[in-house]
């Protein structure tokens, strides 16, 4: 379970101090999918970065499975490496690596040997329907295929938490639906918790709960699009 309380974050913009998050709190059950919704500038990316340990300059408490988030950069990197996965809006695949190598990268960081890396990467690439594209480089893959590679990369090491920032924003509606289904299916299989910042109501609709942020404050904690 991930819990966060009294999260405050402010920026200095010239002489003005901008409050990005104000006493934000909440909790996410293990294996749940949580949508982080809100208009632009509402603070959802800020919260996502804080929960993903990409931004450590905040006030408040966050814990994962009862353990407080680390404060040091290296400990944060270690936690990200072992327990986190990331899906980005623009896929952020490494252009010189093949799909297989991109997916195998988190395993390489964890010290798996080459055959293990390739075996696990192949398995998950097959699950996301890219078994025939494992040796393709990102520039030879469509946007949807690239995002599927990114999903595979985020999940290959079975992380506790996956941070997804607008994962369907760069995709057409048909591909977006496929990606949403894939995230949900794989998330359930692995038991990973997903926090997804999204504008896409279809995405939010599939989530177990929704955190709505407006001007850095949680306005309502419910899945407003859930059927």
């Amino acid at each position, binding site marked *: 379970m991930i819990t966060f309380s009294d999260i405050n974050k402010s920026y200095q913009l010239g002489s003005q101090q901008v409050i990005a998050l104000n006493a934000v709190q909440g909790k996410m059950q293990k294996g749940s999918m949580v949508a982080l919704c809100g208009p632009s500038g509402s603070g959802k990316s800020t919260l996502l*970065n804080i929960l993903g340990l*990409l931004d450590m300059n905040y006030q408040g408490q966050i814990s994962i499975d009862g353990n407080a988030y680390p404060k040091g950069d290296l400990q944060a*990197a*270690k936690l*990200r490496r072992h327990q986190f996965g*990331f899906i980005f809006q623009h896929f952020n695949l490494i*252009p010189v690596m093949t799909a297989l190598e991109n997916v195998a990268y*988190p395993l390489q960081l964890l010290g798996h040997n*080459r055959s293990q890396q390739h075996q696990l990467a192949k398995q998950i690439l097959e699950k996301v329907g890219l078994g025939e594209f494992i040796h393709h480089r990102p520039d030879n893959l469509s946007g949807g295929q690239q995002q599927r590679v990114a999903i595979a990369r985020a999940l290959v090491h079975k992380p506790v938490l996956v941070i997804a920032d607008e994962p369907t924003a760069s995709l057409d509606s048909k591909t977006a639906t496929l990606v949403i289904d894939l995230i949900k299916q794989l998330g359930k299989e692995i038991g990973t918790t997903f926090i997804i910042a999204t504008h896409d109501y279809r995405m939010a609709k599939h989530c177990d709960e929704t955190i709505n942020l407006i001007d850095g404050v949680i306005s309502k904690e419910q899945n407003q699009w859930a059927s």
Partner: protein
Amino acid sequence: MGKLIHNISEPMRIAWLNLLRNNRRTLLSMLIISIAVFALTTAGGFGLYTYDSLKESTARDTGHLTLSQLGYFEKEEETTLSNGLINSASIIPTILKNEQVRGVQPRIYFTGLISNGSKSTIFMGTGVNEKEFDMKGPFLDIKQGKSLSNINMSRYDSSEPEIMLGVDLAVNLNVEIGDWVTLLATTSEGALNAYDFKVQGTYSTGVPELDKRQLYIHIKSAQDLLVSDKVSTLSVFLFETELTSELQQTISVQLSEMALTEQIQITPWQDRAFFYYKVKNLYDIIFGVMGAVMALVVFVSLFNTMTMSVTERTREIGTLSALGSYPNEIILMFIREATLLAFIGSLIGAIASAITTLSLMLIDVQMPPPPGRTDGYPLNIYFSIELFSYAALGIVFICTLAAYLSARKGVNKPITEALIHV
């Protein structure tokens, strides 16, 4: 082993692919590195050739080892040959027993007046035996006639003692091969003595000042002229210059066992190689400055290349950091690229340098005479693996430093900023 090769080759493959992302920039950086390595190894190779030639020239001139009375080079002679060696006849066979020794040449250095009958001038004479010219090899350029004959040969006419004159001295005295000149010198007893000599040949040392004054006569003739059995020095010539210090020790031990009546000083060629060290010091400074300039050029170029590469890949750095890569792992990735660039560039530079060396063996390129000399010399450049290794290591270090400084800036950027970098 296979795993080790993979652990090395796989990151290098990724580094190579990253370099190929911007072909033109990579090619330009590689070219700059190649030129730097080429310039350093070629200029250094020229320096090595020059050092070697000067070393050989000095050793062939003075001998690899010079045996003399203790303090011979520091104190002036009160009378002719007063500081000379008495026991040369017993010392020579002892030294010749060492198989590394090519020859031992007795020498007498003296001065006086030389005359053609109507004109006189001062000279610097050296009494040598005929083998002296074999030892000097290509470092004595005989312009006309022949070198001194062996006085033990039946054809040698003792009534016609031979002399070799420096080419400008012969011109000054207006004498040619077969002409007679008179040498006037002070004997060891302080009296004046004169002998007539027949001109056997003329030679050039390459130094005009020496060519105006120098002459060679046979050592026996010199002893007759100076009325002494002594010699000034004994020059020991070795088959290999590198054996100098080893032989110095051996001969020192052998001489100490001989119970000689005089103290002998053994001077290695390095201690008499004043010109060699002057040139070497000058070249070392020139090549040092050149190396520093090259290093700066490579550093600036590589720093620029790597900074551009890091800036272009800021989002990628952010992604790798988000995935849990440690900063040092990301920096290492850029260092690998710079090292690969340095390695390939250095290899190209070395190949170009080796081709230049080979070409100069086939094509005769003459260098103009150095200051104070009359003759030019063929341009040769050594290709030294050792020199190349130093140059390549230096370049790799510079490239690594440039990559480290550039990449460190990239990884220090906050991940959230790096991820939205455009």
